[in-house]
């Protein structure tokens, strides 16, 4: 049975998205000399060729993973702003395993992915432990860890795995045994898609079908009540950050092993903050995450096509994203309507009784 509450939440989210898109269209109308062209490329562009559909799916993969990572932390009532550093470090570890641990096909990829998860989990564990042990704000600690592991990762790549023959600051090429293979030529959609799907199923089952997941949700809803009911809040804080970090680590590995086949980030890629946008749109539900990630990747890829074909620059999409977060998370947005619905429901029950 679907509760009225859920219907309201979904409806509210959709209305917020519509309003944000509407604002996007108004902006296009204001700045463009060819607004109809621009609309068309923005809305339909990603579907016009196989390659573009491929680009859309490629872009979705890391977004699903960071979206899941952030959702798990949010469900535990924790913040994870550190997905950025976790995925960066995960990607570094995957690169190192790829270059310096020769292994046979299949095994190599698995070990590299596992390494990335461990790397991300390690970063998450530091925040989790500091919070659980000393009550140190995971917000500040994960923010700091982003920079610490960003620099540390860069050090490892630039000083030990840098390809001196490449023109740019990039690592050596990864051997083919560690690649996430492309599954849909001519696009670059890769095995990371399966990784993302497994991660979705795992996250769903973990959160809603296990004792640990139950404890995690209870802690997120009401920490004091959870503690009173005998749940170890300390343990929840730690493992939620560890699992969140592990999944974020996969996001970094997916791009490096699947798309670039060498480490080429000199800046933080920004997927961590994207994960927060996605978790917000998905209301922290693992099954909502792929929808939100597909949507976000779609409007971004539409915006980038639009900027290539017309006079509207792709950054417009950032304004849409920001407004979406603000509206979706504003409790007062449409709350009067919600209130009316609740009253109606109550009255109906009153009559039945």
């Amino acid at each position, binding site marked *: 049975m679907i509760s009225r509450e859920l219907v309201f939440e979904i409806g509210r989210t959709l209305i917020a998205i519509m309003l944000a898109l509407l604002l996007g269209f108004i902006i296009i109308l204001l700045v463009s000399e060819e607004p109809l062209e621009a609309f068309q490329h923005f809305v339909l562009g990603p579907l016009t060729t196989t390659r573009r559909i491929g680009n859309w799916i490629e872009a979705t993969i890391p977004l699903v993973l960071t979206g899941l990572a952030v959702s798990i932390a949010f469900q535990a009532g924790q913040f994870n702003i550190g997905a950025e550093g976790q995925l960066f470090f995960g990607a570094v570890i995957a690169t190192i395993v790829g270059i310096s641990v020769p292994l046979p096909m299949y095994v190599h990829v698995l070990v590299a992915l596992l390494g990335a998860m461990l790397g991300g989990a390690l970063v998450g564990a530091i925040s989790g432990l500091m919070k659980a042990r000393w009550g140190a704000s995971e917000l500040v600690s994960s923010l700091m860890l982003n920079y610490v592991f960003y620099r540390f990762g860069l050090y490892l790549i630039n000083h030990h795995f840098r390809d001196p023959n490449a023109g740019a600051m990039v690592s050596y090429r990864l051997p083919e045994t560690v690649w996430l293979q492309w599954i849909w030529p001519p696009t670059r959609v890769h095995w990371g898609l399966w990784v993302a799907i497994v991660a979705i199923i795992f996250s769903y089952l973990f959160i809603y079908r296990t004792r640990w997941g139950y404890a995690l949700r209870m802690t997120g809803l009401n920490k004091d009540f959870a503690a009173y009911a005998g749940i170890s809040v300390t343990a929840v804080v730690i493992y939620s950050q560890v699992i969140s970090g592990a999944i974020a680590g996969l996001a970094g590995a997916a791009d490096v092993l699947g798309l670039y086949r060498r480490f080429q980030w000199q800046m933080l890629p920004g997927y961590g903050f994207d994960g927060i946008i996605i978790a917000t749109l998905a209301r922290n539900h693992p099954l909502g995450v792929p929808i939100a990630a597909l949507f976000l990747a779609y409007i971004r890829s539409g915006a980038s096509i639009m900027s290539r074909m017309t006079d509207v*620059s792709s950054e417009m999409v950032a304004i849409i994203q920001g407004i979406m977060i603000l509206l979706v998370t504003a409790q007062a947005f449409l709350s009067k309507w919600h209130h009316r619905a609740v009253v109606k429901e109550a009255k109906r029950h009153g009559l039945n009784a």
Partner: protein
Amino acid sequence: MGSMLRGIFSVGFGYSMLRVTTPILFAALGAVISERAGVVNIGLEGIMLISGVSGVLFSAWTGSAWLGLLGALLMSILFALFMGYFHIKLGTDIILAGIALNVIASGGTVFVLYVASGDRGISSSLASKVMPTISLPVISRIPVLGPIISGHNVLTYFALLAVIAVWYFMYKTPVGLRLRAVGESPDSAASVGISVDRMRFLALGISGLLAGFGGAHLSMGYVSWFSRDMTAGRGFIGLAASALGGVHPIGTAIASLFFGFADALSNYMQSLSIPSEFVQMIPYLATLLGLGIFARQQMAKSQKGRKQAKEVA
């Protein structure tokens, strides 16, 4: 090693340290004032970007650096209050509101720059102005110290004055007291008739103003153009400096100098064989350590309190 020490103790190093500290210090003071009112301002990064692009655009349009600065500051306050409106009036989580503002600013500044000037990502075609540098009388003639302290952009001196102004405001004025009361305990503050919402709007407005100075320094002092994401995390570093400085203006100023020191040092390191990545890591590690120690003390204190309460009972 010898060349490194000579580098640190050179006049140029001291000068560049103050220069790189300026935007961090502004952001950090902005973090202090909002945090003291009980609102974490994650949006500093975005506000600085908005200020940076506004300064460039307004100064190019008006032909005056000061009018450019004014425009930049007004836009900064406006967007800080915009974020505050969503948090205070509509109940958006302040962290998410700040992240939303950062997202809007990161793309929106590039978008607006393109619409206004046709420049993609960097304001190369705009004849924007730069804030003047000031040679301090008397002080500039002191050997060693003079060339370090004198000859900076006027905004660097504003930053130093802002430390005192923020301290004075928070600890020596009735409004500052109320602002801190709201942060300590919103319920008790409300019970004695202080408007929590108004104080938080005020804090965010001042926080925006300070971050605005920082952003203006980046595009109208540090360099003479705006470029995509030119803040490069300085808003977040400001939050770190505030945490490291115990959310106190003086402590935060020292912490900001420490970040500036490490930043300037890493520039020197690049010419030597020491990996600059490690030097740049130090301030963040120090913040992490400081955060851990501080939290541990707080926890020990509260546990001791609980124990005593038990003994009394």
